[in-house]
């Protein structure tokens, strides 16, 4: 059995590819891109919520939010490590991010305008992320699958916290309820876009499904998310901003309105409300930290010499 056959058989048997295993270059490249984009998303995703830590209106919510953003940094760390098992380099990946050569989830290019956004991001954005990510816990690439197991566990915790914040706000003042509804209006459609373009237009899906690094199509996952979210919205007492949203007993699913894919493409291609600000901030942190990382490297080198 040659290397390719061995690889194919491993995939076929639903076993995992590990860092030392031979793998086709296409698989390696695709995995690096997938894992890096996921890592970038965690890191960029710290910004829209992180901005509210210093302004959180209660100490308990401040602690919850700070812990959540810390988890996101932690997720970024595992994921960059998983990418490194494929031969990638963290600094190189960061540079690809800030030079716009690698993407991150477009959802983080929307602004957070009130504290209700923190709750809605937990509910809808983390909810959509979980729908996307649960199947990835069975990704054929071992380190990524294991990272996803841990990440999914923490994400569902974040989702519950977000939803709980919204429940509290909905039982508060009228202003708070208005904030929740407004945030829901702004985040609903972008959340649906998190599952990517419709299957008919998705180019990577077939190969990724064959390699078992993707296990459901975009439209399947999107439908699952809608079906899950509608009863949650009802329980919360907010209206989802889609007049076409209704239960379809024949399909056994909720029908929903047309997604504005032109808008989606605009945001993905760099022209969303906050693309520039997010990347600039990441670039600034990276550049401002250069002298610190240089110092750490210099110290480590000196120390090694001294020991040797």
């Amino acid at each position, binding site marked *: 059995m040659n290397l390719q056959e061995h690889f194919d058989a491993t995939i076929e048997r639903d076993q995992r590819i590990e860092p030392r295993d031979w793998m086709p270059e296409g698989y390696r490249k695709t995995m690096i891109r997938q894992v890096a984009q996921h890592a970038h998303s965690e*890191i960029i995703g*710290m*910004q829209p919520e*992180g901005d509210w*830590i*210093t*302004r*959180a*209106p*209660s*100490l*308990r*919510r*401040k*602690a919850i939010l*700070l*812990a959540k*953003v*810390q988890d996101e*940094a*932690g997720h*970024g*760390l595992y994921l*960059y490590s998983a990418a490194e098992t494929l031969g990638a380099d963290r600094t190189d990946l960061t540079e690809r991010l800030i030079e716009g050569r690698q993407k991150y989830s477009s959802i983080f290019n929307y602004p957070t305008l009130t*504290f209700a956004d923190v709750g809605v991001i937990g509910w809808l954005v983390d909810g959509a992320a979980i729908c996307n990510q649960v199947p990835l816990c069975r990704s054929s690439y071992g380190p990524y699958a294991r990272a996803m197991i841990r990440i999914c566990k923490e994400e569902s915790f974040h989702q519950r916290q977000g939803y709980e*914040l919204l429940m*509290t*706000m909905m*039982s*508060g*003042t009228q*202003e*708070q309820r208005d904030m929740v509804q407004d945030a829901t209006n702004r985040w609903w459609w972008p959340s649906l876009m998190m599952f990517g373009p419709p299957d008919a237009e998705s180019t990577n899906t077939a190969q990724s499904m064959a390699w078992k690094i993707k296990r459901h199509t975009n439209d399947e996952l999107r439908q699952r998310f809608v079906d899950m979210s509608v009863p949650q919205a009802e329980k919360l007492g907010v209206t989802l901003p889609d007049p076409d949203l209704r239960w379809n007993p024949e399909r056994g699913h909720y029908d929903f309105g047309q997604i504005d894919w032109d808008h989606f493409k605009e945001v993905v291609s760099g022209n969303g409300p906050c693309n520039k600000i997010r990347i600039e*901030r*990441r670039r*600034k*942190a990276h550049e*401002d*930290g*250069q*002298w*610190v*990382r*240089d*110092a*750490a*490297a*210099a*110290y480590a080198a*000196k120390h090694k010499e001294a020991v040797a």
Partner: protein
Amino acid sequence: AAELARSCLWLGDDALIMSHRLQEWVAAAPELEDEVALANIGLDLLGQARLLLARAAKADPALVPAVNQSDEDALAFFRAAEDFHNVRLVELAGGDFAFSMARLLVFSTWRLALFQRLVDSPDQVLTAIAAKGVKELTYHRDYAARWVVRLGDGTDLSHERMQAGLDEVWPYVDELFDGENEDDKALREEFDAVMAQVITAGALKQPYLRPVPTAGRHTEHLEPLLAEMQSVARAHPDATW
């Protein structure tokens, strides 16, 4: 009880404001490992602040502003700057990573020495807070010390910045040690010994800068910090979150 409330309030305010300054590093730290560590330290201090403010409120309810909020939130979000009792060290704004590590080293070394004494406090709640805090602060101090040493003994640039950071922090050190009795002196000696060790390991110079005189209880940095921290809470005084 008034004495206990006062101590808890002061220690709580220090932790709350210091935590805020660490929160400002979110999405701005030099490495992901530091994002995680700084958030962690910020969380520990926020936790200390919450317990201490609640204890202060319980010991002396007159301290708590009359608003429809929990004690800890009333104290954090509805007091004016002049009613905060934190040391000026934690207020200072801006500053690069070297300054922040110098401040964290000074702060956690001082606070650790304080908490080690509070473990024997007659108040059981405070004892428990202190016991937990000792573990946390030991980690904070070690984290900061490692960076002070690495930056001090790293590149020429980092050495220069680390010395500048230390020099910037130093004039606010004396204020931490205002007591006159034997134990206060022991506290200062402990502090000086730790600092000397780290400063030597980092090939740095001990600063001999005079303390910055006080003019009012706070610096100009506290009011803008509170304006930000309290903005949402104060815009919705009747809300629950």
